[in-house]
């Protein structure tokens, strides 16, 4: 390093520091470049709000997939968010720190399990369970919501835990010293103080749910329709891309990239909201 000198080192480090942001720009550029022209040619309204997806007839309406993605994500939040936030409060407020230090990484193992394995469990265990108890094909909106609800748990739990832990101990002591129970302290003091972090954790979980692909392909059933009940088979935006990408060509392939554009923009918006929420918290401190 003597050869390059201190200034040279700094310049090299600065260049590499822009690697992540340039990767992001490159991704945006290539996805938009493939997808946007198609959207404008086909018509924004027809693409986003028509229900007719029929590639060999040249029909590319992704409305059912948008609806399905939103429902599946909503379902995942209904299941995952309360479970995750409850777990986070239990682990931070009721369990000794030493045990929490073991359980938190254990729960984070849930994030390490490959999504195809979740999908497989959904197919082998969950779908038959739903089929036999509630009817329908089993592979459904409900199955996808449950699997995704589980998959977002580690995100929700670990970010919530971090933000609950960031609440100054003195707040809790102040409340407990006035004779409040742990639960009263949680819902009167801790929740308020860690609210933005918990919201951010849910938004990030939402991003994970909306973007999940392989598990959803395996359990959601994949038929293109607007669901009328949780037991209906649905196809999400991500599933739409992954299912047809392997054989799509020409316009069809562009339509899949255009689906990617919709997904990409949605995710960037969610992430921006989450980062603003988290930043606000940092500033408030």
């Amino acid at each position, binding site marked *: 390093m003597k050869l390059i000198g201190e200034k040279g080192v700094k310049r*090299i480090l600065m260049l590499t*520091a822009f*690697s992540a942001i340039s990767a992001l720009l490159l991704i945006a550029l290539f996805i938009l470049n493939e997808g946007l022209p198609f959207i404008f040619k086909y018509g924004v309204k027809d693409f986003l709000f028509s229900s007719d997806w029929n590639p060999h007839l040249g029909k590319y309406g992704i409305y059912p997939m948008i609806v399905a993605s939103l429902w599946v994500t909503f379902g995942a939040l209904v299941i995952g968010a309360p479970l995750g936030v409850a777990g986070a409060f*239990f682990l931070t407020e009721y369990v000794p720190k030493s045990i929490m230090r073991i359980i938190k990484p254990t729960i984070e193992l849930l994030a390490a399990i490959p999504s195809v394995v979740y999908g497989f469990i959904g197919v082998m265990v969950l779908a038959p369970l739903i089929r036999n108890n509630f009817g329908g094909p089993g592979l459904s909106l409900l199955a996808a919501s449950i699997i995704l609800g589980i998959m977002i748990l580690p995100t929700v739990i670990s970010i919530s835990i971090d933000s609950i832990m960031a609440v100054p101990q003195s707040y809790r002591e102040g409340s407990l010293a006035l004779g409040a129970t742990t639960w009263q302290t949680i819902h009167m003091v801790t929740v308020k103080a860690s609210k933005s972090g918990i919201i951010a954790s849910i938004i990030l979980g939402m991003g994970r749910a909306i973007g999940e692909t392989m598990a959803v392909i395996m359990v959601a059933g994949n038929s293109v329709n607007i669901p009328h009940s949780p037991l209906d088979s649905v196809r999400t935006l991500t599933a739409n891309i992954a299912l047809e990408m392997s054989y799509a060509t020409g316009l069809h392939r562009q339509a899949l990239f255009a689906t990617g554009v919709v997904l990409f923009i949605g995710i960037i918006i969610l992430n921006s909201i989450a980062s603003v929420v988290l930043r606000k918290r940092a500033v408030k401190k």
Partner: protein
Amino acid sequence: MRIHPRYTQRGAIAVLGGATLLTLLILAFIIFFILEKGLPGISLSFLTTNPTDMGRAGGIFPTLIGTIILPLLAIIIATPLGIFTSVYLSEYTKENKATRIIRFGTDCLAGIPSIIFGLFGYIFFVVTLGFGWSILSGGLTLAVMILPTIIRTSEEAIRAVPKSYREVSFSLGATSWQTVKKVILPNALPGIVTGIMLSIGRAIGETAAVIFTAGSSLRIPSSVFDSTRTMAVHFYILAREGISAENAYATAATLIIAVLIVNLSAYWLMHRFIAKRS
């Protein structure tokens, strides 16, 4: 109506504790279910022979190679970039607009779904750069995907090095780079390695980003321009196309074991690191 605080307290413990327990049970169920069904199918010959009849019979040897080589390539590319970025962010610059943009970009990159990485890798590495469905395309795509994780964990590890070490080093006439090399990186190393291990775990289990960039050839690759199939992709194909439930379970079990080994050693490292600190 007012319920006595003692009862709300008990109710809260039951509900919150129940939620935690449920989460842990789900985790345990997934692992035990896969291992119970899959372990009987794992044998030395399963790991060391080629699949026959599309994977209906035979072993998973070529997918083991794919599973090792793709994450390895990704790590080789992403690690230096990630570490240098975090060194720059924490040691060479003050918080300003540029660092905020870099951080925001890193966060966004971390949130992008793997299918988008797959699309990007396909159009950029496979098609535009002409690498084809190959180890190179797959490895580069995975590298971009894990870069934010490495940046974040390295930055956390670097920030955990006491400020006083930096002061001492500077006061003894060290330059910034000497301080980074001699004091900061050695002390942040366990944390950095933990981040790398977690990234490897993620890369091993990845499917959507890999299937469209590295392809799914079952041949043993002879160069980085050959296509390869990872265990995760193999498992997906077996399970989804209903080729062989037995081999699917065995592959899933192998995959889970690999991921668990990588993640548990990461936690072990982190634990030792924290123990040493205090």
